């Protein structure tokens, strides 16, 4: 038998929010994310007290989450994160709001929504995800179980 691990590759389409191409390891949460008071842009981590990702870093990851919540200071937090080099590499989310739209725009990271399959159900933390928001395609690569 070939010792090389089998990989599974899944491709889905969606709507482009911010154009561009980036890839990275997926960080998936079913909980919405707060900007102001919810993240530490200097460290690129989630700090919200009761959040399931508390203490985890989103820097350079493909962040997969339902959407934004909390203060209208949301965009400014991820704007600072980009300047600090701690912003996510790309964004995939389900619920469009002014907070996530502006936050994604000023992060300059490719972002997509309205995906043809629910990314929260499909993508697992640790999967390798390529977001080609220029073409409107997300490619998920995972070691087969």
């Amino acid at each position, binding site marked *: 038998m070939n010792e090389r691990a089998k990989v599974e590759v899944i491709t889905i389409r969606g*709507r482009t*929010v*911010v154009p561009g191409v980036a890839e990275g390891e997926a960080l998936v949460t079913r909980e919405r994310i707060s900007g102001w*008071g919810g993240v530490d842009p200097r460290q690129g981590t989630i700090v*919200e*007290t009761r959040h399931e990702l508390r203490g985890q870093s989103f820097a350079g990851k493909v962040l997969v989450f339902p959407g934004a*919540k*909390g*203060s*209208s*200071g*949301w*965009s*400014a937090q991820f*704007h*600072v994160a980009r*300047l600090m080099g701690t912003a996510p590499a790309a964004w995939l989310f389900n619920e*469009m*709001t*002014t*907070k996530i*739209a*502006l*936050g*994604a*725009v*000023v992060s300059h990271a490719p*972002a997509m929504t309205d995906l043809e399959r629910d990314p929260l159900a499909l993508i697992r933390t640790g999967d390798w995800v390529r977001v080609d928001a220029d073409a409107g395609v997300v490619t998920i690569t995972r070691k087969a179980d």
Partner: protein
Amino acid sequence: MRLSDEEKAMRDGDQGAAVAKAMDLLIRYGEALGAESLVETRNVCGTVTATTPFMRDFALAQGGLDAVFSEFNLDSAEVVQVPKVRAFSSHLQLGFDPHHPVEMGLSEQIVEFYKKSEASAAKMGVQILNTCTPYQVGNVPTRGEHCAWMESSAVVYVNSALGARTNAEGRESTSAAMLTCRIPNWGYHLDAPRLGTHAVELDIEVDTVEDWGLLGYWIGDWVQDRVPVVRGVGRVPNLPKLKHFGAAASSSGGVEMYHLVGVTPEANSWEQAFGANRPIETRRYGARERAATRARINAMGSDREVDYVMLGCPHYTIEQIWEATQLIEGRKVHANSALWIWTPRAIKALADRNGYTAIIEAAGGKIMTDSCSAMSRAVPPGTKVVALDSAKQAHYLPAILGVQAWFGSTAQCIDAACSGRWSGA
């Protein structure tokens, strides 16, 4: 996104580099949202001043305040010269009260840097209101007026209580709107998203500021960012009550629009509030729900020795300061406790003139402006337990500062300040 000829001209630089950058940002943002067009706005509330050490270092390294505005307000790495604003623009609250540097733990350098930044903002034509409640100090939008406001408690107030139209904008989008008089025509600028989605039937009288805070907290927790419609309001709530109601609903959930049947401008009737929608769900609010909400907010309180009483989230009105002076006149803040009341600068000036500041200070309290403890992370030294009459502040302060919080009426808070103990439920 469709652009008018004037908008295309702005994008192409006919009105200078800063306006072109602002329009470029609005186009990227509008397309991200899926907006079909921009809408004209002449009423903008945002944050343009530089307050953090990070911005100070950025200014030193990159070429001063124009560089800070270009990057943090227009998302432009290219430094553009910042022109005067075209829209009527108001400044929101800050990360500190520059008049109380010792209490805020501010270095002289940061205060000096801020003062330069404030002068520069004023020169641009931005009104230095420095409050989360512009609607109580001269910026009262009219029904149907398209606005571009930040600050969730102010957004929910002007949408719902006044019938103005705004989404919860951010630092960059409001700055771009100040220079272009445009914002994406999306969300609460349109008719359909303003209609009710969830129904609340009141089984009990909701009357005091505390009552309205509790109801707001309960509703937000349930509907999240949908549009609740409340039926059964008895006595018509005034500005402070709706201020606390909306702030609570936008903290526990993300409510940016609500209707009170027979009270708010787009809800003369149940039918008008829902329009073509049918309620997704109806819930009743009674004594049980009220008690459970109070217990939930007070879950972060256990020690009854109160170190700090904070009033003024959202910023206190002159009526609330007057009420506080009536409750505290002739009494003293306990030696182990402290009382800080937060309000806009303009209302502080009125409190000074009315003699209220003198009464609060004679009792050992302080009137502060421009910020609050959640924004500034500043509390009296050694604070472990706080008492609040704001459900919003009780929601944020334990998370931000790791303190315990008690929530109750204004009278209970003043009693706690004077006795050093929380005697409420």
